[in-house]
């Protein structure tokens, strides 16, 4: 029965990634290699980030919100952006369109993130006897994260790969990318600085991820128009 619950939570956490891959043209153009490469880059980035965190951050005993530490954490969080940049520009992808490239990178990125952060607690916790909503919420969080990762990859590809984009949109693109990149710090602030409970935080994440996805989509479409 509890294995059943684990199974449910796993579906919620990892299912959307698979669905996204198979439902979109990604599967038709065989972009799995790109996804895997992006995931490997994520692993490398995570390692670099860990080293940075271990070097620059004090271990706080209490769970209080320390602005200086959080700022540092947010800065280190931008290592993610660098990793994404590497994945988007430096990797030699097979000849796939930009359109599919950023989706594949975002998907691989989000999947690696989910596996790293959510699989172990899920395996250990969701199979226990005690029922909590935590793992379902965590699954929803993974969904929001997927949307955010793809949005960030889309914005990244706009920033770094597309040369002829309307000048007026450039600051908006950068602003949005900044917001999406700082999302982990924002949720961390909400959780610890304001003491929000998990359901509220997850709701906020879902909402903002949808909003950001919509904005990125619009931006992408706007950049697409002149070339078309």
């Amino acid at each position: 029965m509890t294995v059943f619950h684990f199974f449910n939570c796993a579906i919620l956490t990892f299912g959307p990634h698979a669905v996204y891959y198979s439902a979109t043209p990604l599967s038709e153009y065989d972009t799995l290699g790109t996804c895997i490469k992006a995931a490997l880059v994520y692993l490398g980035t995570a390692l670099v980030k860990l080293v940075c965190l271990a070097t620059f951050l004090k271990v706080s005993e209490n769970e209080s919100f320390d602005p200086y530490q959080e700022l540092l954490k947010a800065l280190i969080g931008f290592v993610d952006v660098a990793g994404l940049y590497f994945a988007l520009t430096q990797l030699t992808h097979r000849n796939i369109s930009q359109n599919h490239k950023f989706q594949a990178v975002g998907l691989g990125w989000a999947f690696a993130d989910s596996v790293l952060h959510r699989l172990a607690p899920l395996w250990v916790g969701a199979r226990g006897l005690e029922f909590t909503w935590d793992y379902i919420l965590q699954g929803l969080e993974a969904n929001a994260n997927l949307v955010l990762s793809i949005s960030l990859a889309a914005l990244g590809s706009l920033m770094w790969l597309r040369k002829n984009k309307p000048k007026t949109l450039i600051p908006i693109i950068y602003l949005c990318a900044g917001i999406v990149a700082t999302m982990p710090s924002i949720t961390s602030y909400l959780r610890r600085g304001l003491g929000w409970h998990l359901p509220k935080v997850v709701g906020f994440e879902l909402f903002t991820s949808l909003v950001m996805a919509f904005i990125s989509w619009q931006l992408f479409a706007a950049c697409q128009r002149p070339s078309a």
Partner: protein
Amino acid sequence: MELKGGGTVYRQCQVLESMYSMIALVFILVTCVELGDAAAVVDVYRLIQYDISGVPFGSRLATLNHPAASMHFSPAADLSRTVLMIPVRELNITFVREYIAQRRPLGGLLFFLPQMLNFAKIGSKTGSYQIYEMELLKTVLGELERLVIHANIPYPVYFAFEDDDINAVLADVKKNDATGQPTTATTGGYKLVVSAPEPKKVASPTIMNIQGWLSGLEADGDTNQLPTIAIVASYDTFGAAPALSVGSDSNGSGIVALLEIARLFSLLYSNPKTRGRYNLLFGLTSAGPYNYNGTHKWLRSFDQRLRESIDYAVCLNSIGAWDNKLWIHVSKPPENAYIKQIFEGFSNVAQELGFEVNLKHKKINISNPRVAWEHEQFSRLRVTAATLSELSVAPELLESTGGLSDNRPFVNDTAIIRSIKLVAESIARHIYGHQGKNIQIFADESSLAVNPSYVNAWLDILSRTPRVAPFLLKNDPLVMALKKELADHTDQVNVQHEVLDGMFTFYDSTKAKLNIYQVASVTFDLLLLLVLGSYLIVLFSFLAITTKGLDDLISLFRRPPSRKMKTA
């Protein structure tokens, strides 16, 4: 108590998030496995498990893993895999008796005792209880204890103390039961888990008798020529839950009285002018509930001369909860000169102190192994002895031995102090030859007055220390403390280690941790699966339509049959 295990896991997730690493992942894997994530973890105390001559009694199981139900369960429900949670204040004793007597199948029983009886938090909340309620509670507990001790129960039975978490869980369980659904795997609710090892026999339980000797002033040479007065109390207990059997009255009150009497006489005997011409022998004996087996062994270890030098022995048993009447139990007829002398000494002093002492004679049947009073062990060896007790009739085997209901709130300090005065004064008059004279040796406000704070302190300690003999350690802190206390007041102290013989066999695992899990039902998980499935299907359709168009999606479902058509 560990609260909301979900919180710890959640915190674990946060740690993970901030570490962003695989190393953290491995670390979490290691730590999470150790962390229990139960809604509540409660200390529970198991019903005693023992055999009398191979006949099993008490609860025969320790492990528990069943859903919980309250007393409001639906009558049609099958309870063979259900734990009944019963707060003692709502206990329906006839129901439990019926269940146990008819040996109906149950997953387990869990009794909740009021917080008032929790000796770890003594004196915290007794004020809110009416005397009437306390008396009622005491009767109910006594009845319950008698019932479960003498029954052979094939499922685990545990006792725990009520607290806010428990009450919340209980309210929830009751609400579930009220809706008429039996708690099974399909409806969710709470699951109670105790993972305890299989109870093992306690191999050759040792009993320890503590003896203190206060020698009198010798007239010419040999001390052993002086007569001896023995003051004896058995110190161990027996009850439904060994880890809760603190026995404040039986026989905590007796121990306290004995220690205080030893202290008073040590004051008198420290000065050669007031040192009496009697030796005083103080004995704290073990195995009291088991026919005073410890007393028997202790007396057997004496040499003949010492035994013959004992003028009389006073045994103290349950003297902490009486109002105006005490009993002296003897096994020689009241016409006996020695008995007469002792009784007159006691009743004179009692009269002066303003209460009554009555004599009760009960013959010993040598062929009957049952020894109801401690003095009977003396009488069997032809030593004059009497038991001072508030009980008017001899208790049955394993009764009035300091069980569940015998707790600090039910014991009255002043009753113990009056008993101490009675015994000390009577013995002192006997020693100094003041029989019949109205002289108060241990008068209040004098340097020889009974010290109420000493009595109170010792009573508190004893009321917090379970002391069922087979479960005491070889060098148990309690025994060491009693030994040290006696050593402070007497000349010579020794502890005698003996093996408890006879028909009793005990089993361990008296304490355990109960995990209360809130579990989701299978129905909930099925529903969740349905919701998730439809969510993924909708997501798939949405993505496919937006990126490939509706026709593609439809063709996706049409393709296989068309292919079949081609091959055919």
